[in-house]
């Protein structure tokens, strides 16, 4: 059970000299989950790997600011989300004067990524998700793939649960429309 393990990690963090042991446990428990969350946002393995390393580094440096009564995973997700969004913002800035958008470029890069072996339907699904605005994309990922509770999502994204439900609803509708238009 993760919550029991979280308590163990928190106890280790509160004692002197156990920071590295506790942090290794955090990486073991949340590494894969955070990787998937980041990878969905940036799609390319190498980028996801870099962002994951930086997210853990940020978490390690700021571990003192982590409040014991908070959930570890929401705190880590928030860091990973911010890192991913910052990465995308930088990438998009470099495409300002380009005829192609960064999303178009991402589709091409995903097609060539050796660590993507999705079939035609999965590739189309990725393209449909990429057509969404960033915030809707995030909400869709957390709800659809991570099956996360709205209250946790609210904690991570700093948005009310009502707004998140509406956002998810719009995202699903847009994806359905996109898939219907492009499936044939």
């Amino acid at each position: 059970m993760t919550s029991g393990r979280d308590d163990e990690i928190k106890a280790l963090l509160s004692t002197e000299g156990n920071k590295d042991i506790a942090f290794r446990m955090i990486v073991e428990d949340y590494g894969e989950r955070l990787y998937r969350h980041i990878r969905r946002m940036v799609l390319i393995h190498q980028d996801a790997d870099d962002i994951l390393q930086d997210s853990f580094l940020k978490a390690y440096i700021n571990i003192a600011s982590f409040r014991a009564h908070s959930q570890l995973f929401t705190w880590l997700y928030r860091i990973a989300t911010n890192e991913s969004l910052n990465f995308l913002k930088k990438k998009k800035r470099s495409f300002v004067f380009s005829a192609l958008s960064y999303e178009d470029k991402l589709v091409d890069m995903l097609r060539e990524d050796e660590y993507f072996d999705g079939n035609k339907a999965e590739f189309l699904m990725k393209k449909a998700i990429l057509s969404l605005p960033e915030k809707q994309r995030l909400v869709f990922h957390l709800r659809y793939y991570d099956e996360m509770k709205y209250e946790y999502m609210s904690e991570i994204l700093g948005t009310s649960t009502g707004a998140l439900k509406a956002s998810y609803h719009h995202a699903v509708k847009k994806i359905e429309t996109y898939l219907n238009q492009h499936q044939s």
Partner: protein
Amino acid sequence: MQADNNIEKNDTPTKYEGFTTPENYFGELPNKVMKHIAWQQENRKTRIIDIVMPYVYIAAGFVFLGLLIRGGLGLLVDKNDLELTKPVQISKTLNDDFIEELVTDDIAFYEVLAEMSYVESTYAGSEDIEDYLLSYDLFYEIHEE
């Protein structure tokens, strides 16, 4: 309810997305992350040194420049002259005998000056004598003779 609690479990994703990773990527991840953190922490210390070092170099440069100027002056100026200009040396040479001698010389000099001014005031030049002789018509008498 089952779906909502999924995030709290350390499990594999329920929906396949086509994403793959290098072999044993997640197995090696903790070591990789801890190494990255250690490297970054070390690099952070190095960066602080990188910030401080230019100022140290500038300060060392000024010290070196100062020594260079001082050394250069030493080559241009005779060492003995420099020795004499030293305040300690001056104070050593300014002994009592020297001061006494200096004062005596000064007195003698002023005495000479005073004497000279007396002589000047009493001395009658050749022109004055001629004027005197002319006034008594004695000049021609002298020259005619």
